[in-house]
């Protein structure tokens, strides 16, 4: 993303102009734009004219519109899939990018759109978007900064395979895109071993074809090509791809697989086992700096803590807020989903928590809910914390209750005293 302009007043209101460049930037915009913001971008609007004779004609004009946002929607890049009998070549083109739609009412009138008219903006790549907020909080500003770092992020391409299934996945800083899913039914060996072998061979062929189409193996941003599976399928797949690339003389593929290919054992053929991939030493060594690796490691630390010392791993907004109050939080895990709350007060609350932790020298990791680790955090209410010292939830809740009761007691006393005097 390119930062085109930024003007923020001392009171936190102001506007930022951005130029999105890829899918990842769309995700950033989706997380930045909130209900109630004013967004200005180019739009195509259908204008209807009624002539003096009563006939109507309509035409489309390209114009700049400013909307007050009522709804934002994010559509991720589309996943195609190959079932067994359909032809791998006939599936939809893979180059469908992510997009966002912003609905709202026009706030600045122009000749084509009246004040208050409804419109839905399709945000496009390489077209400037101006976002005006009444309050730019620290989380939003950090995101703008993060989004505009040039040359950011390594990408990882992964093929997660199981017997007869494969998922082709691209991981970037904030997004997990499942490019393609392949299912091919392989007769099990109890039917007949020749049928089994035939089915296996067909599976490899389909996988190779899909790999060529869906994995941009030649792209320089791809740092690692992961082949993950339980059992030994990854080895067979790896060997098959090398063999086929040699047979067909595809030197680029051969080089890419040799140089970047990593085979990693995971325990299940589902996409969510990517978490295991990101935890594996082979990957963490290469991608330590990237966001998704960090998310994976932090979440893993949280779960381990939950196992070893339950009192130092808390989750749920209320509990975490209590822990922050007591200055106990060493690492705060929070999902970006919470900041997308439509209620500004809600968002403010979470921003407050993040700032409180940072002020006390704690670490804050904001998870992207387009990654598996973020999805898991979302399942866990979206917020969790690793504490620096053990605290018992029940004791703390008890303390809170007592404090509240004591407060009420005080007040009642004060009231009684007031009446007396």
């Amino acid at each position, binding site marked *: 993303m390119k930062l085109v302009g930024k003007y923020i007043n001392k009171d936190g209101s102001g506007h930022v102009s951005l130029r999105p460049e890829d899918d990842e930037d769309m995700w950033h915009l989706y997380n930045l734009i909130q209900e109630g913001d004013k967004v200005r971008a180019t739009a195509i609007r259908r204008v209807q004219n009624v002539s003096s004779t009563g006939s109507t004609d309509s035409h489309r004009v390209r114009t700049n519109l400013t909307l007050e946002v009522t709804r934002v929607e994010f*559509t*991720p890049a*589309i*996943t195609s899939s190959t*079932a*067994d*009998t359909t*032809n*791998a*070549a006939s599936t939809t083109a893979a180059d469908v990018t992510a997009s966002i739609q912003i609905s709202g009412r026009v706030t600045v009138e122009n000749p084509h759109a009246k004040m208050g008219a409804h419109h839905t903006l399709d945000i496009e790549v390489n077209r400037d978007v101006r976002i005006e907020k009444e309050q730019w909080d620290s989380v939003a500003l950090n995101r703008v900064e993060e989004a505009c770092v040039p040359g950011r992020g390594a990408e990882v391409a992964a093929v997660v395979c199981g017997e007869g299934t494969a998922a082709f996945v691209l991981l970037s800083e904030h997004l*997990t895109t*499942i490019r393609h*899913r392949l299912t091919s*039914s392989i*007769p*099990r*060996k*109890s*039917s*007949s*071993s020749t*049928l*089994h*072998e*035939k*089915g296996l*061979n*067909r599976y490899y*062929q*389909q996988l190779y*074809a899909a790999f060529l189409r869906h994995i941009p193996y030649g792209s320089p941003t791809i740092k690692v090509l992961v082949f993950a599976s*339980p*059992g*030994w399928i990854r080895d*067979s797949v790896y060997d098959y791809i090398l063999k086929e690339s040699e047979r067909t003389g595809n030197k680029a593929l051969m080089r890419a697989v040799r140089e970047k290919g990593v085979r990693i*054992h995971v*325990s*299940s*053929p*589902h*996409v*969510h*086992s990517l978490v*295991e991939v990101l935890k594996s030493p082979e990957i963490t060594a290469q991608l330590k700096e990237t966001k998704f690796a960090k998310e994976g490691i932090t979440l893993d630390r949280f*779960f*381990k803590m*939950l*196992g070893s010392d*339950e009192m130092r791993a808390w*989750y749920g907004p209320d509990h975490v807020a209590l822990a922050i109050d007591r200055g106990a939080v060493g690492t705060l895990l929070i999902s970006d989903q919470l900041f997308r709350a439509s209620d500004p007060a809600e968002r403010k609350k979470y921003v407050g928590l993040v700032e409180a932790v940072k002020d006390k020298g704690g670490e804050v990791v904001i998870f992207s*809910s*387009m990654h*598996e680790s973020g*999805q*898991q955090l*979302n*399942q*866990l*209410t979206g917020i969790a914390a690793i504490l620096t010292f053990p605290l018992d*939830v029940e004791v703390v809740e008890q303390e809170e209750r007592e404090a509240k009761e004591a407060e009420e007691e005080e007040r009642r006393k004060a009231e009684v005293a007031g009446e007396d005097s």
Partner: protein
Amino acid sequence: MAGLNLNDDETEGPVVDEEPPKVTMAREKLLEEARKAIEASEKGKRGVSLIVIGHVDAGKSTLMGRLLYELGRIDEKRRVANERGSNKVGKGSFSWAWELDGTQEERERGITMDIAQQSLSTPHRQITILDAPGHKDFIPNMISGASQADCALLVVDASTGEFEAGFERGGQTREHLLLVRSLGVSQVVVAVNKLDMVQWEQSRYDEILGQMQPFLLQSGFQQSKTSFVPVGAMSGVNLVNREGPDATALSRWYTGPTLVDLLDVLEPPSRNITAPLRFPISNVFKGQSAAYAVQGRVCGGIVQVGERLRILPGDESALVKYIEHEEENVEWAADGSNVTLYLTGVDPVHLNVGSVLCSPSDLIPLATVFTARVLVFDVSVPVTAGASVELFHQAHDVPASMSKLLATLDRATGAVIRKNPRVLTKGASAEVQITLRSSAYSGPNARPRPIPLETFAANKEMGRVLIRREGETIAAGVVLEIVS
């Protein structure tokens, strides 16, 4: 896409013209006949299915290969071919296992990767053998086999250090036993194998018994339903008899039954033939002629040739052309039998492993959210709400999450100890809500695909689930209620 030509689909043309096989009997008459046949078999040979389990390299496949040979199911010619083949690749010790490990990769690696199905007969039993893989990566395959079994044969390796490796935490001896128990298997025969590696010492056999017995009891196997037998699979000692020079060392101290004697008294569970038909598919392949073959086990009810069956999930139905049981064509198959159905009038894309066939009038419910009562195993990391897990149900293996922890229960009485617990620790019994996860993160196909599922009260076999996480079985349970 050259390879796709291999996929020679001939389903479109010839199927249409063929006359559908007639339903031979009315349902009442069929039930009557089935009941009679089952009663008759009470006196003759009774059918029972047996899953062979144990730690990797305990010798499960070898034991089965040898047993099949001893019982005359493998002829001399096959044996010699296997022996020659395995010697040729320098894996002579796998020669017996080759009979069951049929695929090239299994033979190369010397490891079973998928269930092998065989049948054998003892004087009083007709036994369907399911040889499970022992390696932990293939537990999904083992589960799909175990959900088709009535009894289990556990093979343990008696050689020094090997028994311990399989039995300690993370070993498959332990995990397999817990898995089969949670899938409803209550009878187990423990074959203590490779005693020849420790010179047939009685002390070693007793030591293993001493460790196994408390664990079996604790896992819920009644003492009267467990039995132990020392064997030497490779040399065929104490499988059918204790003759020959290899067996003398054992005969000195062991006078109990042989393996076959024990298998011959396995008690088949009662069959419920009046229940609605459920047939979970565990394998699909193209059979001879235009029919597609599906393998599996009848879990309740009865199926006959000529019946039209609904395939769930989905809107398709198919016609049963013929039924194969123990390599013979039969007119019908009842609850508990492992059969191959040959189906016509259906596009094979609708036949998936994990789908359930049932009669069109009595459909199995489909579920994406359900509650279950689970028992948490010996887990290293406690289970939190929202934990992402893999759900195993029959041959299904789908991503899911523990969406809500409803309550922890007292293991003995079932009384609620605590509502909405924060975590479930090991050994806990709890009520949880499980939600299937969609395969996409968001967007149009974000809704998960439902799976066919029934409450435990309605159908025991279709109501059992297993929950695994990162290659570790964390809980087993029964379905209480289907929410949606």
